[in-house]
């Protein structure tokens, strides 16, 4: 076990210890919301960073996860075409979450199959349209989703082990632990995926699609695989969100949330595992910091927009690769100075 792994483990342990010493519930709330968005950003990074496809409809999967999970845990009755009545009774929350993840993944599969016929600008616009269609459905299918009246009283997660103990995730310290655990699991899952054969195929087709195709990489298959995993994880994040805030309305599909995820990934560094974490922490905490400074939300969003432009101009690769390069150059120059005491210049 090397130093870096130990450092990572220590970091995770520190994060798990937060509810023990942090008594300010507001801070915990911010950390929970940030954590949920980091999970969503990590899932987007799989598409945007590793396969290189700019999906601007990612919030659709997040919202689908939130809605499916809420509806399953609340139960619903809906009349489909031809008086076909579908009625679902209340399900335990853990089951609702699993269904939400599965449905989001399935939507990812369908969208992947449809939209990977096209690339570039067309792909972006298809994904935007998809999210907008889903939002309109959530807004207008009042019988199922309550439309703008929103789904209320969504139960929080409870795990019961009969005869042993039960865990309620209603309170913030437990919610925090839950979100952190899902985040850690997602991180490990994505890490394993991108370091596998499939992950190498994704990077290959990002770098040079015709070349990847010519050496036999089944491009569409890997793109769809990445979309399914990304959609399922985003669905999990949405489901966590729904059972945490316990109210879901169609505004969850707003384009601005996709933009937030994209900013997180791009700022942190797309195609790096740590990128969405770094970007997520910055853009998760920034709004609260700006709010604490009594800055109007419009100004706050303007700062977002300007930051996004500045990041693209000055850190096009994102923070993590920039820091990594700087670190590498520093070490190289140290080595160069050590081996050549006479030369004053740093290594190129």
């Amino acid at each position, binding site marked *: 076990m090397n130093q870096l792994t130990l450092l990572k483990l220590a970091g995770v342990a520190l994060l798990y210890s937060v509810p023990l010493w942090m008594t300010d519930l507001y801070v915990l709330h911010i950390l929970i919301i940030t954590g949920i968005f980091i999970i969503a950003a990590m899932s987007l990074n799989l598409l945007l960073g590793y396969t290189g496809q700019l999906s601007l409809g990612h919030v659709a999967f997040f919202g689908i996860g939130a809605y499916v999970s809420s509806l399953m845990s609340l139960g619903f009755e809906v009349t489909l075409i031809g008086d076909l009545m579908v009625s679902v009774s209340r399900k335990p929350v853990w089951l609702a979450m699993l269904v939400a993840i599965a449905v989001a993944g399935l939507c990812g599969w369908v969208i992947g199959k449809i939209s990977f016929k096209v690339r570039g600008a067309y792909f972006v616009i298809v994904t935007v349209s998809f999210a*907008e269609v889903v939002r309109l459905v959530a807004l207008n299918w009042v019988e199922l989703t309550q439309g703008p009246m929103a789904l209320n009283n969504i139960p929080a997660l409870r795990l019961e082990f009969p005869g042993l103990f039960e865990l309620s995730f209603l309170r913030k310290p437990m919610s925090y632990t839950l979100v952190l655990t899902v985040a850690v699991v997602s991180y490990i899952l994505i890490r394993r995926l991108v370091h596998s054969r499939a992950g190498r195929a994704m990077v290959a087709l990002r770098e040079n699609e015709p070349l990847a195709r010519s050496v036999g990489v089944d491009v569409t298959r890997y793109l769809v695989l990445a979309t399914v995993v990304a959609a399922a994880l985003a669905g999990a994040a949405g489901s966590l969100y729904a059972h945490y805030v316990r109210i879901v309305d169609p505004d969850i599909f707003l*384009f601005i949330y996709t933009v937030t995820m994209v900013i997180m990934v791009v700022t942190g560094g797309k195609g790096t595992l740590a990128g969405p974490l770094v970007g997520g922490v910055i853009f998760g905490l920034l709004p609260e910091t700006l709010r604490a400074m009594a800055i109007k939300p419009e100004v706050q969003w303007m700062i977002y927009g300007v930051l996004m432009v500045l990041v693209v101009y000055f850190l096009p690769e994102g923070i993590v690769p920039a820091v990594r390069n700087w670190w590498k150059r520093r070490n190289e120059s140290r080595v160069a100075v050590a081996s050549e005491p006479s030369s004053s210049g740093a290594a190129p």
Partner: protein
Amino acid sequence: MDQLLQHALNALILGGTYALLGIGLTLIFGIMKLVNFTHGELYAFGAYMAYMAVMVLGLNFYLSLVVAVLLGVVLGAAIEFVLLRRLRAADIDTTMLVMIGAWIALQNAEQLTWTGVAKSIDNPFPSTPLVIGPVSVSYNRLFVFIVALALIGATYALINRTKLGKAMRATFQDRNTAALMGVNIDTIYMATFALGSGLAAAAGALLGPVFVVYPTMGDLASLKAFAIVILGGLGSIPGATIGGFILAFMEELGAGYISSGYRDGMGFLLIIVILLIKPTGLFAQKERIG
């Protein structure tokens, strides 16, 4: 039958402004290879400038429209000069991110300046509609339609009959060769972005008095413009013109006969269907990207 005629007339009138929006966006895409997320903001900007000129400064209605369009042209040129000029060599994703950033900043600047309350613009037209047989249309909408057609015609003339238009078409076909032939690419890009922005601002200024003006009005406009452009094929001006009318017809008929809640969803359904059947759009001459 009368109802159908009325819907068709409404669609025709709406289609003119949709076509304006679509042409502006498709020009920018075709020539600059840029997915312009600020397009809807220019539309909102046009509407707000018309509001400012008519309601705040008290200018003449027709003069206000001209002022709004000119300010849109200036803002477009400024965006191109400040944000895009240095990104000539950047790929399509990079410029797209910059445009998204600019869109967020612009929209919130509008919200900050004008607050979130919807504004309406007075117009000098009689409030009684013009009745032609079984159908009726308000004078304001008729005016919007005529001006939109005139602007579409002017854009066609600019692209096909002038030297600037020729240079634009050359840049569209092959940027590097055009540059070698002495076309100043910077000028063409700025002119293109200013022209596209001016058309969007014109659409906003024309529709502002018909509907109401509010800060997020640009979002749907952007998305609809994308739908129109995809429908017609990226970079095709006739495609965008016809696409604008097709989208307007689908929306009107969809809202009239299916459900008014899904009115704005028609465009997106259309995009998805078009891309399933004919991914290059209806009128694209060139192969799609990627």
